[in-house]
Structure formats: structure tokens, C-alpha cells
């Protein structure tokens, strides 16, 4: 579904990523782990079009999407969430999700300004659909709350609901469990599994090892900008190089 091929990224003289290749299989949960500064978020930013790689290619399905801007990737079904949640703070929970449905509606400025019939029909559909996604993530009771006033954990759920509203093929989540308590993390794990079961491929960057080992089908380990290992959670746990990278070797 998603494949990175020889991704290298340099910032000035600093090499953040060097020749990283991996692939994500359909309808699986793939975790990307690694110590701080391993280049996980940089990799995410490249895949989602926020950065441009110095070298290498990204494929979505069979399509070469290297260098595509985020809005174009969104239309192809690739979406992400952010480490420090990026919500539309002044808009309500419902409206945030309705923005997630932007690519699935097409009324232009003229149609919206004149309230043409097509637009009204579309608006009703958007509203109903957004309500379903609120329900999917369990935040229906917060519909009218301004996103900026949400507690952090609920904000996370909203961000996921908003991303899912796009009907993506792949969802990338940057540290979704960061800042959540254990009960919220458990709820998150269930939600991520539910997302996989709905047929969406999930890629996670995460520090919470328990969560990663629990829900991931496969794991990619980065260290100092290079890929260290790739495999099932069990393989990764037993890999001596990974253990050395995390615990330090003598």
C-alpha cells in the first residue's frame, strides 16, 4: 500500500534520514519506532508531503507520489494526525470533522454563495456523515464544543475522527498515545484496531512500547536516521541490534 524507497533527507549539513526503505502492507498496523532523534517525525513529514526528501521515492499503491503536496495526497487517500494535535481550535468538534469531509464534497464558491440545490444536498450529507464519525470515535457528546476547549485526550480522538472522515486508504498517526493516561491509551488501542478492521491501513510513530507491541502487525526500527530492523513485534523484541540501540551497548 505504502512504500518508501531509499529516502534520504539532509538539512544543511545534517543528515536526518539516510537511505530508508520500507513498505507497509494493506490493512495492517505498522509501527515506526526508534530513540529520540532517529528521524521518525521527519520521515512522517516526508511521506505526508510537508517536507520534500533530498533523495528517494514514496509510492502509494503503485503510484509514485514523491513530492506531492499534502492536499493532493489527501485526495489520494493518505492522511495524518500530529504529535502536538493540530485542530481548528475556533471551530466546533462537528465543524472540524466536516472539514475532514472537504475532499468528499465539491461545491465551489458560487454554488455555496448562492445556495444552489446541489450544495444544500451535499451539506446535509456532510453533516450526517460527520455525525457518524463522531460516533465512531466516541465524541458525539462534544459536538458543539469548540475544539480549542477540549481536553487533550478528546482532542486526540477528534483528530482521528477528522482524519477518518476523509475515508483514507492510509492513516499515519504521529505519537497518538503521547500525553494520554493509561485508560485513554487502552481506548486508543481499541480505536486503532477498529480502524484497521474497517479496511484502513495504519502507520504509527510511537514511544509507548507496550502499545506498539500490543497492536502492531509489523514494526520498522529507525536509529540515527537509518533503518535498523523491520519485522513482527516478536522479531523486533528479540533483535540484538534493536536492544543495543535502546539500552546502549558496551
Amino acid at each position, binding site marked *: 500500500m505504502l512504500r518508501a524507497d531509499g529516502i534520504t533527507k539532509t538539512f544543511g549539513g545534517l543528515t536526518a534520514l539516510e537511505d530508508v526503505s520500507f513498505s507497509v502492507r494493506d490493512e495492517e498496523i505498522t509501527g515506526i519506532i526508534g530513540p529520540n532523534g532517529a528521524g521518525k517525525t521527519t520521515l512522517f513529514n516526508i511521506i505526508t508531503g*510537508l517536507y520534500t526528501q533530498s533523495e528517494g521515492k514514496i509510492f502509494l499503491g503503485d503510484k509514485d507520489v514523491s513530492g506531492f503536496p499534502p*492536499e493532493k495526497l489527501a485526495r489520494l487517500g493518505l492522511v*495524518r494526525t500530529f504529535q502536538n494535535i493540530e485542530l*481548528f481550535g475556533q471551530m466546533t468538534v462537528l465543524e472540524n470533522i466536516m*472539514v475532514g469531509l472537504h475532499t468528499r464534497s465539491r461545491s465551489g*464558491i458560487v454554488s455555496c*454563495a*448562492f*445556495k444552489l440545490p446541489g450544495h444544500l444536498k451535499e451539506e446535509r450529507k456532510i453533516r450526517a456523515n460527520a455525525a457518524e464519525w463522531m460516533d465512531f470515535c466516541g465524541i458525539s457528546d462534544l459536538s458543539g464544543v469548540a475544539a480549542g476547549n477540549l481536553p487533550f485526550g478528546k482532542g486526540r480522538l477528534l483528530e482521528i475522527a477528522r*482524519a477518518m472522515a476523509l475515508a483514507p486508504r492510509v492513516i499515519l498517526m504521529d505519537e497518538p498515545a503521547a500525553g494520554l493516561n493509561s485508560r485513554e491509551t487502552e481506548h486508543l488501542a481499541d480505536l486503532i484496531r477498529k480502524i484497521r478492521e474497517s479496511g484502513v491501513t495504519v502507520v504509527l510513530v510511537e514511544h509507548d512500547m507496550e502499545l506498539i507491541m500490543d497492536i502492531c502487525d509489523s514494526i520498522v526500527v529507525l536509529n540515527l536516521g537509518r533503518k535498523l530492523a523491520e519485522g513482527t513485534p516478536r522479531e523486533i523484541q528479540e533483535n540484538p541490534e534493536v536492544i543495543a540501540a535502546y539500552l546502549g551497548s558496551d
Partner: protein
Amino acid sequence: MPSMKKELLTFFLFAMAVVIAPLFFSGGYLMNVLVFVGINTMLAVALNLLLGFAGQISLGHAAFFGLGAYISGVLTATCGYSPWLTLIIASTATSVLAFVLGFPILKLKGHYLAMATLGFGIIVYIAFNETVDITAGPSGLTGIPNYSIGSFQFDSDTKNYYLIWAFTLVTILLSVNLANSRIGRALRAIHDSETAARVMGVNAGFLKVQIFTLSALISSVAGCLYAHTMTFISPASFGFNFSIELVTMVVVGGLGSIYGSFFGAALLTLLPEFLRTFQDFDILVYGLILILMIMFMPGGIVRGIPEIAGALLPAFKRTRGENA
């Protein structure tokens, strides 16, 4: 978000108020001021779409207003075209310019965008002053005809009031519709987080250019109406000061509130008239009022007054209770 019925009712009541207002002020000097309130409301709504919704600053909006006024003014006064035809020519030409200008300029953010639009406004202002052969320069362009339909001339304040407010009401209605649509949501999303909006598939770059163009289009239409109401225009009306005044109207009225733009425009148009009694001190009082409003109603008049009323009401009740 208000329901559709409530929205329509608000608009209906507002339109009724606009229609009957001249019954109370007809003939007086205030009628002339209310014509300006209409033009300024149109301009403030236009700028609000860009500033309040998309969150993109423009310190050069007076230029679009001026371009509308001058293109229409010159083509009618000098070339003898019909003002209705030049309304279309002027607004189309200004929109095309805004569209072409929008692509490079809206790549800039924050202070840089402010500087670029400021620069654009100043260039246009200088052009109005210096192209004396076309615009008659600083002394101003005279002989601009009024609008007319058949033999009916829009030659009084009351007639122009209805003409201008017809355009203003349409602008308000369309803007409210736009604000409550997927385009309005996408604009507010860009305002809050452009990155997240793009990740959600909003083509932020192009949408910003579109709304910039729409904003310029409305401003240029307001410019045409202004020129043919006044029948005289000079560059001084389209300078940097007026661009700042427009931003002030939008902020005082409330960013992202279409009706707020009306209140902002009305306040900033009427206030100087009422402050004349302070004579030389009027500008100080004017400044003081604006400062107090921004301090106590940072969200603008439309949101601020209910908030303050809500905060004061319990206090009033308490005092009355103690007295009794």
C-alpha cells in the same frame, strides 16, 4: 452555527431595518452618512472574508476600492460609457488583477503579507496621483455621471441609499451563505492551522487566491457605486489611511462575523460625525473609544455586547436586591 431558519430571519429583519431607515432620516444630512455606511459595510464584509475567515491580512484593500472607482469613473466621465457597463468592466479588471497578484503575494504570511499588500496599496495610490492625463491626479476626477435606469436618475441621497444598500444586502446574504458552507469552513480551517487544513485536502494556496479575488471583486463594485454616487473622486479617498480604517472596521465589528462588519462599518462611519462636538479633540476621543472597545470586546461588537451584558446583568440584579 445558527440554523438556516434563524439565519434567514436575521437577514430579513436586517433588510427590513435597512428599508425603513430612510423614513426616519430622510432629507437630513444623516442620509448621506448612511449611504457611506452602506459602502463601508460592503468593503468591511469583503475584507472580513479575507481577514476574518481566511486569516490573511490586507493593508491595501483601499486600492481595489479605488481601482473600481477610477476605472468606472474614467470610462464614464472621459469615454462616455454607460456606468452599468463600466461596473462590469471595472469589477472584472480588478478581479483579474487580484487573481494574478494573489498567487505570488499570498505565498507570504503574517507581517510579510502585510508589507506586500501595503506596498501594493501605495503603488496604486501613487498611480492615481501621477497618471494625471487619465485620472486628473490629486485634484480629482469630476463629471462622473449618476446611475440611471431609463430616464430615472439616481441623483439624490435617498435614491442612492436604496441602490447601494441593495448591493450591500446581496453582498451580506451571499457572504453569510458562503460562511456557513464547506468553503467557509475550509477558510476558517486555514485560519486556525494551514498545515492541518492542507492535510485534510483543502487546497489552501488556491482557495486563498480565490477568496482574495472575491474580496477584491466586492471592493471594486463598492468603488464603482462610490464613484457614481459622489460624482467626484480623488486619490485621497483610496490611500493607506483608508485601508487601515477598513481593517479597524473588521476588527471592531468582529473577525469572522458578517453582521459584525456592518456594526464596525457603521460605528467607524458615524462616530466621527457625532464626535464633531468635541472639535479639535475628536480624534483623541475616537482613539480612546477604539482602544476601550478592543480592550473590553476583543471579539468585536457582535460577540462583545452580549458578553458584557451577561456579565453586568447579575451585578445589576444584586445591587437592586440589596437596595430592596
